């Protein structure tokens, strides 16, 4: 029967064509307590957000409140001595009583600078040891320099840091970083701030399948569907900044992202149907009266 043969032909990889093989049919129909944990800390929201590029502090706060994010990245930079003394600090706008900080090493192009940055951040935040390590390779792509990243990760782990590490969508490197003790591995979807969406779904899926630590897509998400795709691929979360901050309406986009993360997560847990190349009627064929 040619139709059966056609149905069994593996379809071309369309969207999200990676059904889970470990579907738990006993799972409840609604997800009430689907927290994820990193470095022994429990979180409800799987959306992590950056705090840069907003118009002002009010918009920062409004967008982040709307996103529901519990983990926020911050950067450390030189103090403007004698300038803007009255400008509110990001730590006052997003107080530590409400958010978990994830200080980053953005702008670092070598391991040593990244390690120094993390030590300064830990001192600044009274011993808070959770950091986002990123060591960049060049200005044009902001792709990670994985050699320097490995070096910095090792030094930071030895110094007692919990390292969430930004890396390429490379399953081998992701595994190495996990094995050396990083508490989460965060492959890029596309270049930082590009909004290109997930360029290599198969690699992200492979990284997720191989991992025993949380995998979060970090960088490159452009719109809500990108975030949903990341979650449907089985990622534990998504970290984004520009996709929200550079939207025409950042607060509305923050709302969209929150829903996309939840929708993608539920779709992943539900276990999608296998995609097929040709149609399969939804109404019964038996009992047709013509």
């Amino acid at each position, binding site marked *: 029967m040619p139709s059966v043969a056609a149905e069994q032909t593996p379809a071309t990889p369309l969207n999200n064509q990676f059904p889970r093989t470990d579907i738990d049919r006993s799972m409840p129909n609604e997800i009430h307590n689907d927290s994820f944990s990193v470095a022994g800390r429990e979180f409800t929201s799987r959306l992590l957000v950056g*705090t*840069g590029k907003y118009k002002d502090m009010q918009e920062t706060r409004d967008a982040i409140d709307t996103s529901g994010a519990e983990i926020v990245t*911050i950067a450390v930079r030189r*103090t403007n*001595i004698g300038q803007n003394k009255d400008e509110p*600090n990001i730590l006052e706008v997003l107080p530590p009583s409400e958010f978990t900080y994830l200080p980053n090493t953005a702008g670092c192009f070598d391991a040593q600078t990244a390690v120094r940055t993390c030590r*300064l951040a830990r001192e600044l935040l009274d011993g808070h040891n959770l950091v986002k390590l990123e060591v960049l390779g060049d200005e044009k792509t902001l792709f990670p320099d994985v050699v320097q990243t490995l070096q910095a990760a090792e030094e930071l782990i030895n110094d007692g840091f919990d390292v969430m590490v930004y890396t390429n969508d490379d399953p081998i490197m992701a595994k190495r970083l996990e094995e050396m003790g990083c508490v989460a591995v965060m492959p890029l979807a596309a270049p930082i701030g590009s909004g290109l969406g997930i360029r290599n779904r198969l690699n992200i899926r492979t990284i997720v399948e191989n991992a025993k630590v949380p995998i979060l897509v970090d960088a490159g998400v452009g719109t809500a569907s990108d975030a949903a795709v990341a979650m449907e691929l089985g990622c534990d979360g998504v970290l984004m900044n*520009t996709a929200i901050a550079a939207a025409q309406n950042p607060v509305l986009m923050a709302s969209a992202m929150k829903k996309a993360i939840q929708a993608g997560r539920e779709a992943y847990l539900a276990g999608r149907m296998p995609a097929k190349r040709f149609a399969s009627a939804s109404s019964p064929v038996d009992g047709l009266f013509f």
Partner: protein
Amino acid sequence: MQIYLNGEEKQIPANLDMAGLIGLLELTGQRIAVEVNEELVPRSSFEGHPIMANDRVEIIHAVGGG
């Protein structure tokens, strides 16, 4: 005495410790972190941490970032 403060040359009085420099810059009590010549100086050591000529002092704070 000359030091490099956040990458710029700055003249400061001799015999100043880190707590004194922070005071001079009106940053006392602010949430900052400091390194000198690429080594972290913990807040607990500001008092009594000597500043030498040509020290490279970096004073950082938190900003928004992704």
